[in-house]
């Protein structure tokens, strides 16, 4: 598979979940394990451009696929506009859910462009923030979508 643009080839057991493969084999620990039951969304990564829960997928299923993790969003030392917007809007408290929130946000903005707050909240139904910092997370996504739509930020 290709992870964050780099080809990766590792021998691993068929039962290795994608999230463990990323964290333990590739040492990409930005992808988190929260609930481990595909409810909380801390483990969201993109597989062939779609946001999926990497705790509910085996690494071997992603053989040949393009995988993007939170580590792959920043380009040339510049944060992705969604990351930038999370920083500017204080879209995080403890930060544990943030990688999954951002990966989900990038996916929803790609599909929907600028959204109202209700749509953003609905799209976030598979991501849980135990600090309950949703107000600023929604603001960050709203802001990021506007920045991307206005062309002020280029998205790789």
């Amino acid at each position, binding site marked *: 598979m290709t992870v964050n643009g780099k080809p990766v080839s590792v021998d691993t057991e068929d039962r290795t979940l994608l999230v463990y493969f990323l964290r333990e084999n590739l040492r990409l620990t930005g992808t988190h394990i929260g609930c*481990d039951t595909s409810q909380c969304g801390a483990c969201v990564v993109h597989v062939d451009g779609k946001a999926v829960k990497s705790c509910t997928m*085996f690494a071997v299923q992603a053989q040949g696929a393009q995988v993007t993790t939170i580590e792959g969003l920043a380009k040339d030392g510049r944060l992705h506009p969604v990351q930038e917007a999370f920083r500017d809007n204080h879209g995080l408290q403890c930060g544990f859910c943030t990688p999954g929130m951002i990966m989900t946000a990038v996916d929803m903005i790609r599909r929907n462009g600028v959204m109202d707050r209700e749509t953003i909240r609905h*799209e976030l139904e598979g991501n849980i923030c135990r600090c309950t910092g949703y107000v600023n997370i929604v603001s960050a996504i709203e802001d990021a979508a506007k920045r991307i739509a206005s062309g002020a930020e280029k998205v790789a």
Partner: protein
Amino acid sequence: MITYPFRYRRAQSVSEAEAMLKASSEAKLLSGGQTLIAAMKMRLANPSELIDISGIKELSYIRAGGGAVAIGAATTHWDVATSADVKKAIPALSHLASLIGDPAVRYKGTIGGSVANNDPAADYPSAVLALNATIKTNRRSIKADDFFTGMFATALEESEIITEVSFPVPEKAAYKKFPNPASRYAMVGVFAAKTKDGVRVAVTGAAPCVFRVPAMETALGKNFSADAIAGMTVGADGMNSDIHGSAEYRAHLVTVMAKRAVAEAA
């Protein structure tokens, strides 16, 4: 959580998948994996092999026409929820698909997997039963009324593979779901459909297996309005009872959700 060990294989066609199933007594099909992998992580399932059918192109399609919507078994919930054809022909079905899990789950989970698993709280079985759909397999066609046989049980035989679910287009239909706020599974979901052959009301989440409510169907056949079933109750005997809700609570919800579904459809 780590599953028991297993061997992973990819099938390129339905016939290859069938041959792989026949060659192993403990093999299971893997499509979206959104239920199976969770069960394997809890070590409730222990297949010796997983045969991945998610990449079989001939199983992923939506075809509307001839008074029906035919959906390939490996079609994702996402594709059903966002299909213009489904939205136009059976909006209640596309709405149902949009309520399954969350976006990440809908990208992976498939209609064939949901129907074959027959989880007591899954959404699709209610649509299959209420719309009198036909389940096509690599061997035969099975009517919805004969398909769901009990908790996690179906009429599927050894190495039989669902290839398509075909839904006749109803005159009116709606699905109303009371979701568990964490899992998004249905505490109770009611699919009500009015077709040229009559009214069908199917309930998921309430009991060990999806079921119809004949008394409501008869009443709605005479008068398709929420008022026609407002005074009806279903018994709590045999309803699911767990930390999320008692049997009595679920029985009560059946009437509430049925009224809402009919009001929306009518």
